[in-house]
């Protein structure tokens, strides 16, 4: 996805109203992404601030081939990975998810089929349970998942931001979603037994 041509031109020449508007638009997403990357709460503000300063200094380099949101998120991830090298690790080297594999038999059919985590739960309850499950995810998986589902970047944009191949992103999303589903399932069972107490 490209940025609008008129907006790109305004950003490049540093039109103050446009630049302020862009910053206003991207801040909430930048804060969420910084948190999703595993940064401590007390580091969020400074890291996002540093990222916006880079944008203010380099706005003339913006070429409009990607949306400006994508471009700034790329700056953020670059900054974060300077202090958190783990974000740059190759997805292929992450541990194979035995939890997930064990759900299927030798022919690839479900041996333990999904047992409805939260079919009956309200959206707010799902969200509440999900928070803990998200925190338990490896940083890169959480970041990829949240960029996709919360920030609603398309997969190409996320590859661009995280500097990973489409294959790597697929692996990250698959593992994130599998783990979240497993985690919700276990909490779903937990939740109903709690309710009986």
């Amino acid at each position, binding site marked *: 996805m490209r940025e609008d041509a008129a907006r790109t031109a305004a950003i490049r020449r540093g039109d*103050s109203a446009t630049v*302020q508007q862009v*910053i*206003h638009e991207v*801040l*909430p997403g930048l*804060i*969420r992404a910084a948190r999703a990357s595993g940064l401590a709460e007390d580091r*969020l*503000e400074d890291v*996002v*601030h540093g990222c*916006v*300063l880079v944008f*203010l200094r380099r706005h003339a380099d913006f070429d409009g081939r990607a949306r400006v949101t994508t471009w700034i998120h790329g700056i953020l991830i670059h900054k974060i990975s300077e202090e958190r090298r783990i974000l740059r690790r190759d997805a292929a080297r992450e541990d194979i998810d035995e939890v997930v*594999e064990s*759900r*299927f038999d030798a*022919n*690839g*059919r*479900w041996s333990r*089929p*999904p047992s*409805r*985590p*939260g079919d009956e739960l309200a*959206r*707010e309850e*799902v*969200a*509440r*349970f*999900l*928070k803990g499950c*998200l925190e338990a995810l490896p940083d890169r998986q959480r970041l990829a*998942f*949240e960029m*996709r*589902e*919360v920030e609603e970047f398309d*997969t190409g944009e996320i590859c661009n931001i995280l500097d990973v191949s*489409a294959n790597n992103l*697929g*692996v990250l*999303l*698959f593992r994130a*979603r*599998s783990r*979240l*589903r497993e985690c*919700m399932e276990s909490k779903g069972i937990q939740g109903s037994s709690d309710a009986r107490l």
Partner: protein
Amino acid sequence: MLACNEVTRLWASEEIRSATLARRIAVRMHLMMCRHCRRYVRELALIGEGARVAAEASTDDAIRERLERRLRGESAS
């Protein structure tokens, strides 16, 4: 005939989006016949929606306002 583990992998990794037409049809056919995989797909949608609700609920207003103040100070100087 696609196996369940392959269907779930194609779906959750979103590889399905760039798959060949034949493969996308095979996944659709599988989903029509397999209630476990249908449930899996439904749950992923529920989890995505839950993540959006969770993000809306945790507002970062305080940190955002501090940042905007800091940045205004800097662009004015």
